[in-house]
Each structure stands twice: as structure tokens, then as C-alpha cells.
């Protein structure tokens, strides 16, 4: 079966390549026109122009690949026969195999609340364009998905629990409860919606999740909130799709396929710690896959694909540690480390010791002399580093069991610069109000945030009731993008750019009406309520320290996810909690049916009964014959009394 699929893909790939070259060759003369159109940024000029504009990047890409593989001149691409042979040689010869690289990392941050945050980061870099069928480190299932659906960027996350910003600060990568998927397609994709539909179904199979429930009623195209994180400056949001499934439950069945994407699986390296019985005995669990093209070097002339797998977990002080402030790898994961993944070029553990410079808060054993500093989330943090590729790290027992033991038990309180919450106000089943509250805790800087609200169609938003207030005064958003919903077709999408004044609370309120669904549209548990996904707040928050803007510099993985354009601010995405809204629900029970039936009968009977009771009957004489009636009409016209 697998072999069949592989050969099919190979054929498909070579066919794609072939057709691309043919198209490229035939369009060579029209290229400047196409570029002109692209430069104008005029996407709505009919299908023909769209096709033209979408072609040139494909040609370019082909050129990169050609130079990469055998250093051929770009002109060679026009000829057909040598190219196909090149393709085959790439597939067959292991010598020309593209370079790939795998890194793994575990960051452990003791949180002020006494809980502990562990973040796994795995990164696979591959200098390829997926026109090959031999995969080494990169998972083949994902590679095929990327090439088949012309995906430019793919971000998927599965989260169980809610990140408590007020207690825990900002996570390295944030994600909403449930499943979230956002994809940028290549601009060569003509029918984005059907591609998206297919892609969600395929991903649903790969990750063993209900992503197939993503359809047009929960998919939107945000205009500003989700910019590509990789390189590439196409920001036409027609090629972006965003969807969340707030109800998705994440469990072992999602973890296993996620682990299988790793080069070492869960056999060696940091991934041996990922045992589900401990990972799911926690306060928060989030796993994600991010695929994007990144620069290969400083000049950024060529790209490679980056696959980033992250897993964030927070262990609770009270339930996991019985209130004792003492954490070890064994206590957290019921495993210790014995080796790095042999395929990894780097394998490190970082422990955040910023709050503990002299060792007065907690002690760390075994001690390490290796320290590292990284600027992450607007703060310069110090980390103790354990390099797993060095044998010395494991000591004499050949096993590493990191131990953090607190000396004092008081935690300091946290004041994250930006956080948000959301709730439904009102009572009854007719109307309600969605409140989104955003807190800017910066003492003197105001900053803008991009708020995205994705509301299902069955909550009918009264957009005229939209109010934005900060410090009791009205706050006018500088940008509003609103797409009204269509019943059973698409959701509401509201994006707003709001300036948050320093040290303030900004409240966005909107009233809505609850729709009465058709009786087949209710879920099997209608009285549970219906979910409204998290709203997304993306912002450039003023940074306390200068951020690193040099993306090619060697950095720990956790600090290099969001590209940083300027030194004075850092990018943060905050998700609010999802909402559970009750809709008017018929009582789907036997008495309900009986009542409906009786009411119908009564309603039918009442009309006639009432009619009979109120009408007075009079006996009327039999109607006269036709002749008499005509005679009467004539007499009436003459003005004589009728017969």
C-alpha cells in the first residue's frame, strides 16, 4: 500500500515538475507583464491574470532547486529532457541528497506560583523543495502533504487546558484551548477552499484528531492577525485559512502520531520523557507543529523548510507534587535521560535561573557551569545549560535526573504586560453580550493590539452595539475589518486594531441574539451549550530590553520562533478563554413530543370550537331561482322594490 502511494507521489511530482516547466517555458515572454501585475498588487483582474501572477514564483523556485542540485544555469530549465533526467538523478543518487539537520531542546522554567513549565522544542531543517521522494529526518507524511497541497506555511496546535497568563506569564508559543489550524497556501493554488478542505481531512488522519469538522462555518480568512512567520512577502489573505475547534479534546491518541514525526521517535533523546500518563497528569498540555520556509543563510537567497514540533506542559504544585516545592525530571516525567537523540546535531536542556542568580531561591543539581543568556518575550533571561551530546553531562551513573529544590516557599506575584479575558454577560435565552477585556499593565507605554473575534453564525452579532472603552472613555479602533456571517455558511469575523493606553483596562462589548437552530442541527448534547472559539490578540508589546533582530544568529530554539523586526518590541499572541453559550434548546424528550402533539390538536380544535361558539346561526330562506334573481337585479336598477 505504502509503496503504491510512494510511486504515485513520485509520478505526480515528476508530472508536476514537467507541467511547470512547460508552462514556464511557454510563458517566458509574458513574464514581465505578469510581474508588472504582481507589482501593482491587483489580485482581482480575472482568472487569467491571476494565473499569470501565480506562475513566476514557481519558476524562481525551480531556479533555486536547479542551482542547488547541480549548479545548472537558469536557462536550462527551458529544455525538457535534461530536466526530467535531473529529477530522476535527484531521486536515485544519495550523493545529491539535500542537507538536513535536527535539534532538540527542553526548557524548564520554575513559575512564580510554584508550578513548573516544561517546553520541548524539536526542529528539523531541510534544504529541499520536496521534489524528492527520499526522506531522512523530515517526516515523509508531512512532506507529502506540503507538496501535494502547495502549503507555504502550516501551523497546527492541540491544547488541553487554558494558559493562565496571570499566574504563569507568557508561554514561548501560545495556543488556544482545543485545536487550531492556520495555513498559508502557495499563490499557485487556484481553488483554495477545496484544497483547504482536503488538507484538513488529511491532517485529521495524520494527527488522529477531528480536524475534519473544519468546514466553511468555522473557517475564516483573517486580514491582519495571522501574518506568515516564515520568509516570503505575499500577504494576500486569500491564501490564508484559519480555523479553531474549541471543543477538541487532546489525549494520547494525538500524542502518539505527534511523537512519530520525530526522527528518533520516542526511543531516544528528550522524547523519552514524553510519557502520556505523566504528560496528561498536568494543568496544561499543548502540542504543536509549525512548518514554514526559513532563510538558509544570512543573505537569505535560498530557503529551507523548517519543521518545528513543540510541546508545552505545566505541572501543578498541588496535584502533582502534593504541595512540596521540589521537582525532578523523574517526578515530572517518571523517566530520566540517558542519551541524546543520535540523529540530533544539538540536544540541550535549559533551566531558567533568572530569578535565582545566587542560588538563594532554589538549588539545582547536578550543577552545571554552562550558562546562557537569551532575550525572550521582552526579557533577558539566564539559563543553565545541559548539553546532552557531551558524555560528561550524564555523570558517573549514566543518567541525568535534574532536581530543583526550593529553599523558600514564597512566590512573587506576576504582572504580565498584556493579558485578556472574555465572558458572556446577561441571562435568559434571547440576547446576550460578549465582553472581551484586555489589560495593558505597562506603566507608561501604550501599544496597539490586533483583536480577532471569530463567532459562529448561530450567535447573531448586533454589530451596531460594538463598543470599545478604555478607562471609561470611548476608544475608537483605527482599523476594523468585519465580515458578517451567513447562516449555515460562514462565521462572523471581526478584526480591530485597538490602541491600549498605558496601565488600563479596555473592554470590547458586543450584543448578540441566539438563533433557534433546526432540530437536526443540534449536537447530541444540546444542553451542554455551544462553543465560541477564543478571540486572538496579537500585539507588538514594548520590550524592556533590546530584542535580537538578527535571525540567523545562533539562538536557542525557544527564543527564535517569532521573527523580530525591531529591537524595541516583541511579538505576543494572547488567546482568551473560549465561551460556552446556551442556545434555546427544545426538550428532546417524550413529554416534549406529547406536548407538541397535544398543542397542535388543541390549536386545530380551538379554532373551530371558538367559531361555533361565537357565531350566531340564522335560518335563511332557500335561494331564489336564476330568473327571479335577474328580475330582481333589473328591478333594483329601475328603483322598484324586489320581488
Amino acid at each position, binding site marked *: 500500500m505504502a509503496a503504491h502511494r510512494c510511486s504515485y507521489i513520485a509520478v505526480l511530482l515528476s508530472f508536476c515538475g514537467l507541467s511547470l516547466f512547460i508552462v514556464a517555458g511557454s510563458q517566458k515572454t509574458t513574464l514581465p507583464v505578469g510581474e508588472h501585475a504582481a507589482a501593482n498588487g491587483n489580485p482581482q483582474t480575472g482568472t487569467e491574470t491571476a494565473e499569470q501572477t501565480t506562475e513566476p514564483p514557481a519558476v524562481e523556485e525551480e531556479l533555486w532547486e536547479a542551482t542547488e542540485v547541480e549548479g545548472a544555469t537558469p536557462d536550462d530549465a527551458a529544455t525538457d529532457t535534461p530536466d526530467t533526467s535531473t529529477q530522476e538523478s535527484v531521486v536515485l543518487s544519495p550523493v545529491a541528497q539535500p542537507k538536513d539537520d535536527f535539534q532538540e531542546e527542553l526548557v524548564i522554567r520554575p513559575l512564580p506560583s510554584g508550578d513548573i513549565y516544561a517546553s520541548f522544542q524539536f526542529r528539523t531543517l531541510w534544504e529541499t523543495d520536496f521534489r524528492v521522494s527520499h526522506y531522512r529526518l523530515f517526516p515523509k507524511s508531512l512532506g507529502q502533504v506540503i507538496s501535494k497541497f502547495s502549503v507555504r506555511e502550516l501551523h497546527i496546535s492541540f491544547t488541553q487546558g487554558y494558559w493562565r497568563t496571570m499566574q504563569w506569564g507568557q508561554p514561548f508559543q501560545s495556543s488556544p484551548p482545543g485545536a487550531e489550524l492556520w495555513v498559508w497556501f502557495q499563490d499557485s493554488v487556484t481553488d483554495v477552499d477545496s484544497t483547504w478542505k482536503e488538507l484538513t481531512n488529511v491532517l485529521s488522519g495524520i494527527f488522529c484528531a477531528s480536524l475534519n469538522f473544519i468546514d466553511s462555518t468555522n473557517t475564516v480568512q483573517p486580514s491582519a492577525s495571522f501574518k506568515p512567520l516564515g520568509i516570503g512577502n505575499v500577504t494576500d489573505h486569500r491564501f490564508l485559512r484559519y480555523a479553531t475547534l474549541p471543543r477538541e479534546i487532546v489525549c494520547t491518541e494525538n500524542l502518539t502520531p505527534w511523537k512519530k514525526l520525530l526522527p528518533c521517535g520516542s526511543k531516544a533523546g528528550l522524547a523519552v520523557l514524553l510519557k502520556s500518563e505523566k504528560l496528561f497528569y498536568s494543568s496544561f498540555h499543548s502540542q504543536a507543529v509549525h512548518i514554514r520556509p526559513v532563510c538558509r543563510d544570512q543573505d537569505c537567497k535560498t530557503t529551507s523548510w523548517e519543521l518545528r514540533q513543540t510541546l508545552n506542559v505545566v505541572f501543578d504544585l498541588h496535584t502533582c507534587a502534593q504541595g512540596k516545592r521540589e521537582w525532578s525530571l523523574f517526578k515530572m516525567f517518571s523517566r530520566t535521560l540517558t542519551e541524546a537523540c543520535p540523529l540530533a546535531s544539538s540536544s540541550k536542556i535549559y533551566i531558567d535561573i533568572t530569578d535565582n542568580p545566587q542560588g538563594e531561591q532554589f538549588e539545582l543539581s547536578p550543577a552545571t557551569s554552562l550558562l546562557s543568556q537569551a532575550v525572550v518575550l521582552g526579557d533577558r533571561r539566564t539559563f543553565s545549560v545541559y548539553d546532552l551530546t557531551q558524555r560528561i553531562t550524564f555523570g558517573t551513573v549514566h543518567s541525568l535526573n535534574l532536581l530543583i529544590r526550593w529553599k523558600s516557599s514564597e512566590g512573587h506575584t506576576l504582572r504580565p504586560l498584556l493579558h485578556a479575558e472574555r465572558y458572556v454577560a446577561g*441571562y435568559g435565552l434571547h440576547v446576550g453580550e460578549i465582553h472581551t477585556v484586555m489589560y495593558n499593565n505597562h506603566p507608561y507605554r501604550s501599544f496597539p493590539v490586533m483583536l480577532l473575534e471569530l463567532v459562529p453564525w448561530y450567535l447573531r452579532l448586533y454589530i451596531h452595539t460594538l463598543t470599545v472603552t478604555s478607562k471609561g472613555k470611548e476608544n475608537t479602533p483605527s482599523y476594523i475589518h468585519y465580515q458578517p456571517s451567513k447562516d449555515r455558511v460562514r462565521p462572523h469575523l471581526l478584526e480591530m486594531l485597538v490602541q491600549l493606553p498605558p496601565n488600563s483596562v479596555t473592554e470590547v462589548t458586543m450584543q448578540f441574539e441566539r438563533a433557534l437552530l433546526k432540530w437536526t442541527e443540534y449536537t447530541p448534547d444540546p444542553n451542554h451549550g455551544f462553543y465560541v472559539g477564543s478571540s486572538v490578540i496579537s500585539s507588538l508589546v514594548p520590550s524592556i530590553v533590546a530584542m535580537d533582530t538578527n535571525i540567523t544568529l545562533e539562538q536557542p530554539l525557544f527564543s527564535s520562533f517569532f521573527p523580530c523586526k525591531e529591537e524595541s518590541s516583541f511579538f505576543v499572541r494572547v488567546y482568551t*478563554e473560549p465561551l460556552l453559550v446556551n442556545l434555546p434548546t427544545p426538550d428532546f424528550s417524550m413529554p416534549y413530543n406529547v406536548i407538541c402533539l397535544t398543542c397542535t390538536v388543541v390549536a386545530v380544535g380551538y379554532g373551530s370550537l371558538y367559531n361555533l361558539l361565537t357565531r350566531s346561526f340564522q335560518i335563511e330562506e332557500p335561494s331564489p331561482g336564476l330568473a327571479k334573481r335577474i328580475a330582481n337585479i333589473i328591478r333594483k336598477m329601475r328603483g322598484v322594490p324586489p320581488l
Partner: protein
Amino acid sequence: MGLLSDPNRRRALISLLTRLNAPICVVCYMAGVAWFMGLAFEPFTLRTYMSENAMGSTMVEERFPAGERALATGREFSAHKKKVGGMPVDWLVKTMQDRGLEVFTQRFSRTLPFPDENKERYMVKGTNVYGILRAPRAPRTEALVLSAPCTPGDHNNQAVGLLLGLAQYFRNQIYWAKDIIFLVNEHDLIGMQAWLEGYHHTNTTGMNWSPLQGRGGSIQAALSLELSSDVITSLDLVLEGLNGQLPNLDLANLFYAFCQKIGVVCTIQGKLQRNDWDSVSGYSHSVQTLMLMVMKQASGRPWGDHGLFLRYHIEAATIKGINSFRQFKRDATTIGRLLEGMYRKLNNLLERLHQSYFFYLMPSLSHFVSIGYYMPAFCLLAVILLQALDLWVQIATPQESSPGVLSVLTPLVISHLTGVALYTLPTRFQEMAVEHFPVSETEAVVLTAIAVYTAGLALPHNTHRCLGTEQGWKVLKLVALLYLAVLLGCTALINFSLGYILALTLVPAAAFVTPNLPKVLSAFIMVILSPACTLLYSVFFFQELQEAPVSFQDGWLLYLSVISQGILDHFLYGSLVYPLIALLVYPCWLLFWNILFWK
């Protein structure tokens, strides 16, 4: 249909109805009362059973160990309460934080429309403290509430202690799927009202509160705890909420099931369960229990802190610890285990409680009367519609001077204006009354209400200027009867008890009244059957049922305080009984009064 469309048969049927009208009405009235009395007879009622699958079949273990420590915390709380002279906010915040909860406070203030003499409060200021236990791996969409009021004096310290003990124990468990909110509210119902309004960001009663900082999503169920002694002999379940709303019966079933399992004696309306239903005393016992529930429900006031949750479609009940049946002593650990079990089962809920009944009466904790059984009792009373049919037939026979329907407009408008006066004047003119008469504000309000009510009786002599014919009062009576039927029907659908009690007195008055009766006697009967007198009997009857009979003097004072409480309930919590009586029932009764004095 054929029967009615044939003019001859129709005439026969109608003449039959008109002839037998009075006997039919009397028989139906009797049958209605008899049916109602039969509801308390055990073989006629259903046993309670758990409808909700998520709570029924799953078993939970109760392991709460720390009852003694909870009581110690309660004593500490009491000491701090005494020291501060009110709610020890700082201590509570710190204690909850130590137990690993996210703690928030809410300040509120409310000036009552007039001083509440029962609880001695006028300008109320207070603080609610609540801690949220965040369920691990749950996205803050659902929550459960456990609340304990912080009452002045020595009351309820054990409840707060147990609440904190449970919070500590619950925090160390991993199995929670819903956030649990532990709330200590000050000034009982006013604090609860402020907290609920803050949580749902509504303002229905004009209270001032500071917005809440932390929430846990939509609240699925709530329990309010009242314990005032270290040793508990039994637990009493209070269900009656605002406007006679009741929580889903499954909540009562859950409580009953756990009391059975853990072996705690449980009561409802403070009445122990008895097994001798076939004896007279056993029957009268369950009649008493049922009547108490009817009385409490009809009053429309919240009978515990849980009562205000029901407006927000949150199933809630109050659990009261009683210390009077000496032979069954239970310690705080047992109560803690009972609550733990209940919360674990509520935590298992997949949907809101909706499977079981929302409209029911309980003659004992193990038996209930559903809406399908008690509604016929009301329907039999509402047969006065036959009277209306009779009048309709009489009016329909053509006469010379048939007055238009507009002629009844004057009495309708005047009686409703009286109703509006009864609703607005007492609170509007309390200052003026206090200035001119030697009474307190509360007395002023109540006495003004009674004065307006009595003054309304004098009105009919002035309102029959329109065609004072035979036909005139019949039209008026027809309108009044239909009005009464609709009014009582709607009331009974929302609050059966209130509708039934009103129907019990208003229906005979409405049925017999004509202008041709001896004036003095019938006026006396009418007054006796008026809504105000119904309230007076209810007060005495309620005291009788509670086995605390009062003398007439005390009963009258109680009556006055009940009126003031009713008015306060309306302004503080939005209870609808006072406006219903003042704006609709009283004017309707005035219409019948008007007919009696028709010339």
C-alpha cells in the same frame, strides 16, 4: 362539532349548561380541592429517581478526611470576624491563596428603599470574597459554585470552615473537569445578588458593585451551605427560590441519594420522613410538608442564598445543618464527604441538569408530584370559565339597550389606576408619611400600602356612572371573569402555588358575585376573600404548619412585616409577587367589588 353546528342541539346544550352551571362549578371547586389534598397521599405520588445518566450510574468515592481541621478553621474565622467586626476580608483572601486558589474580591453597596427592620439594615456596604479552583486541563468554560454566607454574630462559622477545608482538599485532586468557585458572601442575599450580577454583568436592581476580575465560564450548579454547630444531626434541603422557581429535581435526588449512602438524616421543610403513609398522622405529616412547600413557593421569595441563582438558569439549592434530633449525631467530616460526593457527581455532568422535572412539589424527599399531577387541581378550580360562557349566552340574546364593550372601560381603568397607586405610593411617600405621622419608615410604607388598598374599596361607588343596566354589569363580569382566568392561568404556569392559593379564594368570590345580593353580607364575604386577607390567613396558616402558632397580636405584626418583606424582595431581588398583586390581582378583584355595588 356536529353537536354545536346544529342550532337545535346547540340550544339544548347551552340551556343544559346554563341550568347546571352553578352545580357544575361547585362540584369542580370541591373536586379541585380534593385533588390537591390527594396529592400528598403517598400511593398517588411517584418515587424520586435519578434521571441524569451522568450522575446516576457512576460511582464516586468520598475521602474527605479533614472535618476537625475544617472546624478549627471555622473557629479561626470566627475569631477574625469578631476582631474585624464584619467580614475578615484579608484573612479570607490569604487563607484561600494559601490553599492554592485564585482569589478575587468584589465590593458592593446598596441603599435599601426603606430600612429593613427584620435584619436591621438600610445602607448596606460589603465585600464578597471568592476563590476559584481552576480545573486542570479545562478551558474555563464551566464552573460549579459552593457558597457560604458570612452572617454577623456566631452563625455559620462552621460553614465557612468546611468550605475552606473542602477547598483545600479539592485543590489536591486531579479529577476536576469544571472550575469550582468557593464564595463567601457578605449580607447574605444582597451580597449574593451583587456577586451574581457582577458575574453576569447585568444590573437589574440598581445595585453598585465593582466588576469581577476572575470568572470560570458558565456556572452549571451551585450549593449554598449553612452550618452553625460543630455537630449536625440532620441536613435540611431548601429548594424554593426567587419567584417560586425550583432547581431541577435531580439536584434534590442527588442530595437524597448521598444522604442515603452516607447515612445522614435528611429533611425537607424541616420535616423528617415517615414510613406510615397509611395512618392518619402519616398522611397529615406529608400534607403539612406539601403545604409548607406550597406556601414557601407562593411567597415568591428566595428561601436561601441559592434562590437567586435560579434566575440565571443555574441549578442551586441550600443545605442547612440542623442540630435538633438528638439521636443522630454526625460530625463535620461526614458532611464534608457528603458535599465531596455531590460535587464529584456534579463534576461528572456532561450537560446542564435538564433531564428531570423543573415543576414539582415534594410531600417528602423520596416522593414528588410532577406538574402533570398537580395541574388538574388548578384546572378544576378554573372552571369559572363556565360562568363566563353562561354570561356570554345571556348577553348574546338581543335586547334593546345593549351597552358597548367600551362601557366597561371606566371601571377597568379606575381599578388599574388604584393598582398603580398601590404599587408606587408606599415607597414614594414614605418620607412624607414619616414627617406627618409618628411612625418609622418601614411602618409608613406598610401602612400606606394598607391605606391605599382600603381606599380602593371606596372607589366603586363613584365609578358606575355609565349605563347602570342589567346588561352593563354582565358585560363587566364577563370581562372580569375572563381577565381572572387568564391571570390565574398564567400565574399558575409560572408559580403553581401562588396561582392555586389565589384561585382558592378569588374563584368563589368571582363566581357568586352579582349586584342583586344582600349588600352587607356579600361585601363582608368579598373582603374576606380579597387578596390581602388571603395573605393574612396564609401567615397564620404558615405559622401553624411550622408548629409555631402565634396569637392574633403577633400574627398581625408578622403580617405587617411580611408585607414590608414582600415589597423589599421586589426592589432588592426583583421578586414579582408584589407587582403581580398590586398591578393585576388587586385591580381584578376590584372589578368584582365594583359589580357588587352596581346600581
